[in-house]
């Protein structure tokens, strides 16, 4: 028998300004984000680290994964400030997308909106923090460390 609509786990639909995915095997990521944790995961069989997290390890084909939290700081690899937005993101403009290098993994996200442009430098240390958007959705942003 087909599941009723209310039984389908759509927690991931709360990720980002507009989410294009509602159901994923790593939906617990959203509960952890709600609790203030940005999480990747690690394959318990072979030890491979993944961010963003995955349900399946393509290294050993395992599916027994354990969560870890993104902690400490990462190096700003690159960023771009958008002055024009795709459909659905008009109310967020301007905003900056960016990438932090944490060594064992990288994190893609947005820069916090309150950092003066002249203080943003490639190579600077930053930290990823959970963020609630004005429309109630959740993402994470990078703040100066």
């Amino acid at each position, binding site marked *: 028998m087909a599941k009723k609509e209310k039984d389908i786990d759509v927690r991931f639909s709360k990720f*980002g*300004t507009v989410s294009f995915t509602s159901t994923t095997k790593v939906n617990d990521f959203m509960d952890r984000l709600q609790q203030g944790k940005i999480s990747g995961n690690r394959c318990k069989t072979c030890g491979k680290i993944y961010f*963003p997290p995955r349900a399946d390890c393509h290294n050993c084909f395992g599916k027994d994964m354990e969560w870890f939290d993104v902690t400490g700081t990462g190096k700003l690899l690159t960023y*771009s400030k958008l002055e024009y937005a*795709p*459909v659905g993101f008009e109310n967020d403009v301007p*905003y900056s*997308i960016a990438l932090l290098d944490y060594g064992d993994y990288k994190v893609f996200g947005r820069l916090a909106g309150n950092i003066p442009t002249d203080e943003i430098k490639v190579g600077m240390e930053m930290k990823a923090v959970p963020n609630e958007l004005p429309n109630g959705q959740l*993402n994470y942003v990078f703040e100066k460390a």
Partner: protein
Amino acid sequence: MGKVGIIGVGQSAFVRGFPGSVRELAFEGFREAMQDAGIATKDIGASVICSAPEYDKQRSPAGVLAEYLGLTPQPTFYVETLCSSSSMGVRLAYSLVKSGLHDVVAVVGFQKMSEITSAESQERMGRGADIQWESPFGTMMPAYYALHARGHFAKYGTTPDDLALIRVKAATYGQVNEKAVYRKPVTFDMFSDPENSMSGPVASPLRVGDCCANADGSSCVIIANEEKCKAFSKKPVWILGLGAASTAVNMAGRDIFSGLTVGMQAGEQAYKMAGITPKDIDVAEVHDCFTIAEMMAYENLGFAKPGEGKDLIKSKETYKEGSIPVNVDGGLLSKGHPIGATGGSQVRTIVLQLRGEAGPMQVKDPEIGLVHNIGGVGLYGNVTILGR
């Protein structure tokens, strides 16, 4: 087994707002290629139809186009790798011919981008990246390439002015290409004039002038085995080398932001298969969806050492008279970039160059040409080397 060559090439004019349907648009490039080859539809053994989905409403376009082009009951199928779809189509057509399954294959690329708005188009292309983990942050193609521009600037000291020079070159040739969507000149000074639209911000450090023009268009490349090439064509152009690669869709899975690994890998494969080096290339078409993409292509294909692409454009070596002419048809920047039609259009330009039929864009007596076509944000890469 014998060689595989190209006996016919065609493309529609690249325009804003093509006044017809998708099948009618596709016919324009097809007609020109068929008339170029001088063959009939019964001579085509199969068709490969190439585009990126969700710009128009037609699902499974291969069957609809094959019927309109008069290519039924021959087999037809759809190939999609975003902006490199028709280069991947050429790769597949090569394998269909090389295997002996078909003697002649038509590769038809098309895109009618004007059925949706520019902001909708940005959203569609943004979803050509990682929709689960990155698109929810509000991504779009100019911003993804801007991440690479920033990476290139940080590593090599490249500047927005260096990128502007690439746009100026593109416009030089867009003006003389009657198929180009953008026929106007672009000067270096426009980029520093706040009143000029070219200087307008899009996604820092890229400006309006750094971005290619969306367009409606179609292209067609007709590929044949050696026997049919010699029977049908006085000037067949041979496929000497092919390369293709893929990489992580999400930026978090990438290691390099000053180049595109798929371009490097596809280039290495194609050079090896053709038995040549970058120095042997006489004329090239590279994927300049943004100015930074052409700069990275110079370096990724070995036309310049890493970080020295800016010197190549400053010294005008990639102009028509230079040591390695690149995108002398206006490139995606001025000719326009109707996603699925682009690779076939690039192949057409190189074929015309090698046949000495490129008119005002003709490079002096080229023998070997290269096509570099990227899909998504360096997600897919194809390099095709052609020779007389």
